[in-house]
């Protein structure tokens, strides 16, 4: 029984929006992305990265190539080869650490299980590439990021990690325990013999 009143009311409303958007910039909620960016929230995450201490990514890498993350990763997108010296003794660092971000689903499980706080989530998301195969397979040096960068991305989380690392190696285990609990079970079910893949 409005006889067209509703249409007029609607027209007034849209006209108000139209005019208002020119006078009141607060109405325009669009963030014009490549030019303007929103600060990413603390818990933002895209793909994993490898954290290293000090200046040299080769030497400072926290990763000891224990392969827990490789085994736990649900879509199996991590590939690790343990580095060995000339006598064949393990060097506690990865020779190869590959991560296929076309497969990774950003679940962060690798981060949760790593006992050494070596793998953390990055927030870089502008990773598009014209090369479907090569460019989406990140190698050790593509993944390496300094600890300061990690602190910048996730200040609260990295602060806790730093405090734990500073407290000493004994305390590092406290974080690893609950996460590492189910790890052996997962390892046995997967049936992989430890150290298989790094034999030459």
């Amino acid at each position, binding site marked *: *029984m409005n*006889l067209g009143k509703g249409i007029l009311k609607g027209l007034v409303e849209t*006209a108000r929006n*139209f005019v208002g*958007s020119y006078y009141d910039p607060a109405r*325009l909620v*669009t963030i*014009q992305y490549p030019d303007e960016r929103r600060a990413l929230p603390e818990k933002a995450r895209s793909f994993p990265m490898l954290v290293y201490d000090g200046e040299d990514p080769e030497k400072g890498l926290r990763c000891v190539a224990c392969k827990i993350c490789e085994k736990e990763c649900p879509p199996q997108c991590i590939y690790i080869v343990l580095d060995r010296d000339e006598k064949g003794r393990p060097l506690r660092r990865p020779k190869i650490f590959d991560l296929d971000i076309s497969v990774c689903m950003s679940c962060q499980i690798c981060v949760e299980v790593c006992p050494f706080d070596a793998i953390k989530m990055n927030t870089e998301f502008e990773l598009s590439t014209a090369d479907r195969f090569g460019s989406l397979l990140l190698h050790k040096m593509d993944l390496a990021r300094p600890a300061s960068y990690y602190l910048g991305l996730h200040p609260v989380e990295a602060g806790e990690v730093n405090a734990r690392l500073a407290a000493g190696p004994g305390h590092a285990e406290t974080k690893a325990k609950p996460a590492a609990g189910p790890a052996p079970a997962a390892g046995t079910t997967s049936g992989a013999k430890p150290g298989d893949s790094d034999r030459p």
Partner: protein
Amino acid sequence: MIAGVPPSAATMFEALDQLFVSLKHWLVGQLPPAWQSWVSLAISAAAILGVFMTLFALTVLIERKGLGRIQNRYGPNRVGPWGLLQPIADLIKMLTKEDLVPSGADRVVHFVAPVVMVVPVLMAYAVIPIGRNMAAVDFNAGLLFFFAVGACIELAVFMAGWSSRNKYSLLGGMRAIAQMISYELPLILSTLPVVMLAGSLSLVDITDAQAGHSGGWLARWHVFTPWGLAGLLLFTVAATAESNRAPFDLPEGESEIIAGHLVEYSGIKYALFFIGEYLGMFAVSALGITLFLGGWRAPVIWLEWVPSYMWFFLKLGGFVALFIWLRGTLPRLRADHLMNLAWKFLLPLVLLNAVSAALWHYTAPWTFVGAGLARWLLCGSLVGVPYVLLGRRLFAGQHIGPRTYRMAA
């Protein structure tokens, strides 16, 4: 001639007004007489094509900008300053896209449909006077010709829907046929009073019937009479439906049948449909301007020095803005509501409007004090009262408002 300006200025304004007409005459005059009539037509056609295509490009940009602002967005602003070059970018995109034809499609009809869409619409512009002495053809059945070629759009849409061999296309085509045939009736009948009173089907004559001034200053446009005002409103509703614009965009209905008859079109063929739709909108707006808003005539006597084509395009711009505004405001109608509106509401009103126009015509000799007011009340109530009654009757027993959902516990 032109009121209120000295004679020397009057000749200058006259020359400005007839600038394009004189230019064409001069150009044609350079040629051998045997060619003249053909070249004259070709120049008119080229001018119409150029002007309305430019208008199309501008309108698409303005529409996207305007809709954006209505929704508190920026709209396109990346290509060129303020996004002004967006139409060019769109054109390049359309031209370079792959032209797909479904393997099950009727290839010939699928190919012809976009052409059938655009060509008749362009033909319709031939009879519209876009300025003083600026109709490409003064055809004595111009209005009839306009509606005859306008009806080809229905054919094109159904050809597209049928030939694509896609269920969404077919649904869109069927919706289009149902909608356009239903609204053709109120559209044509709403122009009936104009033809009755002008006594001619020629659009040039109809524009001339709106010449002169009442009270010494206000133009005698049809819209300043009760039947003209009602006629314009009814015509606008029917024209919106006829040109498939929101809220009557059921044939496309992106959210239900994913663009309907356009589903299987891409690249330049899609662009042709798009162009046809907008050109159709301009054409029907131009018709509304000619019939009710005095065509190229100025609204008041003091503004007659502005060139006639400027007035025409100003009014056209107003129509386009209205269409964009409506699109940004109203949600799409449901199919049964659409039919109800056409047959139960618009049709009785346009018929009564014709009666109202006749009454207005026969009460013209009234001379007693307050005769004008009495005529307005009488003719206005002939449409206004049924509007209220019909509106109440159609909505009686219908609950309109927030829907209540009853869920299973």
